[in-house]
């Protein structure tokens, strides 16, 4: 998981010719160089480290290798640090002393090192799904939905009164208007789409149900139902133009067919 940190062996000059891209920024390079001092990072000589870094950067530049600006900025800062460490501070100097600067850098190196160790500790913990495992076959809680209905007496009475009154008027009508419900439209489509892989006009599905006076309601509810099925991903719907015939196709089936075609 954790790519172990591989300090680049810089024991000889050869090792200096190292791809700088392998470092994650100047702090990483500094940490890596610090390792070559073979001392505890808390007792590292910042001055020696700065010199090492500058030598390294010079070497890279001599070889005309590209260097990211970050590395050069750090080099400039380290050169300045070096001068502050070597020269006594002038009277009334407002700038931080060389020691303060060195301590700041040492802190940053220690902190980065600490975070790396923390990362390694995290990575090496017993991790879920790698070292420790949860129940492989959990028994989920079954949720039984129970509905609680509510209605007021007013709802009840007004539903009754309205219905009775409408009905008392509509008795005059000779024939009850037949309505194909959305559910019925949906049921018919659901029964049939399993068999239709090719684009088929929607009217084919509904035609056995069409009598002249029912055409409007049937078409409307079949269309409504088909939209619902499209939304659920069960069928595809296609229309080339406004008011052009609607075509539908069973999506599952269509996918299988196209895959077969692809394989063949």
């Amino acid at each position, binding site marked *: 998981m954790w790519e172990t940190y591989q300090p680049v062996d810089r024991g000889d000059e050869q090792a200096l010719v190292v791809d700088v891209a392998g470092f994650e920024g100047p702090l990483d390079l500094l940490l890596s160089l610090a390792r070559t001092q073979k001392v505890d990072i808390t007792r590292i000589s910042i001055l020696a480290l700065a010199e090492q870094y500058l030598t390294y950067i010079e070497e890279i530049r001599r070889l005309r290798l590209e260097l990211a600006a970050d590395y050069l900025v750090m080099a400039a800062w380290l050169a300045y640090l070096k001068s502050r460490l070597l020269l006594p501070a002038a009277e009334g100097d407002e700038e931080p002393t060389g020691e303060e600067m060195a301590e700041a850098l040492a802190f940053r190196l220690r902190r980065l090192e600490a975070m790396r160790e923390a990362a390694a500790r995290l990575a090496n913990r017993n991790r879920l799904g790698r070292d420790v*495992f*949860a*129940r*492989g*076959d959990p*028994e*989920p*809680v*079954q*949720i*039984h*939905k*129970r*509905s*609680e*209905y*509510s*209605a*007021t*007496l007013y*709802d*009840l*009475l*007004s*539903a*009754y*009164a*309205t*219905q*009775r*009154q409408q*009905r*008392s008027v*509509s008795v005059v009508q000779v024939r*009850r208007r037949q309505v194909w419900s959305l559910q019925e439209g949906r049921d018919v489509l659901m029964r049939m789409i399993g068999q239709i892989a090719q684009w088929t006009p929607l009217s084919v599905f509904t035609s056995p149900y069409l009598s002249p006076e029912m055409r409007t309601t049937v078409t409307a509810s079949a269309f409504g139902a088909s939209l619902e099925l499209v939304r659920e991903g069960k069928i595809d719907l296609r229309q080339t133009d406004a008011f052009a015939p609607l075509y539908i196709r069973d999506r599952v089936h269509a996918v299988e067919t196209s895959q077969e075609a692809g394989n063949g």
Partner: protein
Amino acid sequence: MANSSAAVAIAVDNDASPTNFSPEDRRQGLRMVEALLFASAEPISAEDLASRLPIGTDVGGLLKELQQNYTGGGVNLIQVASKWAFRTAGDLSFLLSRDALEQRKLSRAALETLAIIAYHQPVTRSDIEEIRGVITSRGTMDVLLETGWIRMRGRRKTPGRPVTYGTTEAFLAHFGIDTVGDLPGLDELKAAGLLDAGVAASFMVPEPHASDDLTEDEDPLEDEALEAGGEGSLAEG
């Protein structure tokens, strides 16, 4: 089934010449069997377990010991189709189901049907359909029965013996009325503005039958009808 699990036991016993396993090895074996069974997404056979344990492990014995350890606990080690798996103890299965209460509104159709049952009880499904002028969907009656506000009262003494419906105590309690006889009549509905004043003279609002006792033209429900109420009412329609 019994045969095949016997075969397993034999096979395992054959494998398991418990040569020189120390008590410590045995304890570790038990831990391994426990962990493997716990982490597995499906029941594991004794052979499968054996294949993942040190050679010579007495899998059969360990399984028995583990099963013993879990006996009486909240989780048991059981055998399904001659494989092994942990399962919640049967008597605790109630812990793994939860009721979720969902507040729902009655549909217009259900409200109308309910009102008709209240006013016109005892009433059959075809009475309701005649009054409403539309077919009553199966779902509507199911919902109303689920509310506990209507019940099947009996069967009408007519051909086909259709089930009669009426309201329940819960109905009265929910709508805050003492008896169905307190439901407002024609004049009151008019006064409340729920009916047009100019409604036809022939328009009647019935006096609901308030008693739980069966009317003269009702027979009691047989037990079968209570259980298979759905079927009973289908036959009616």
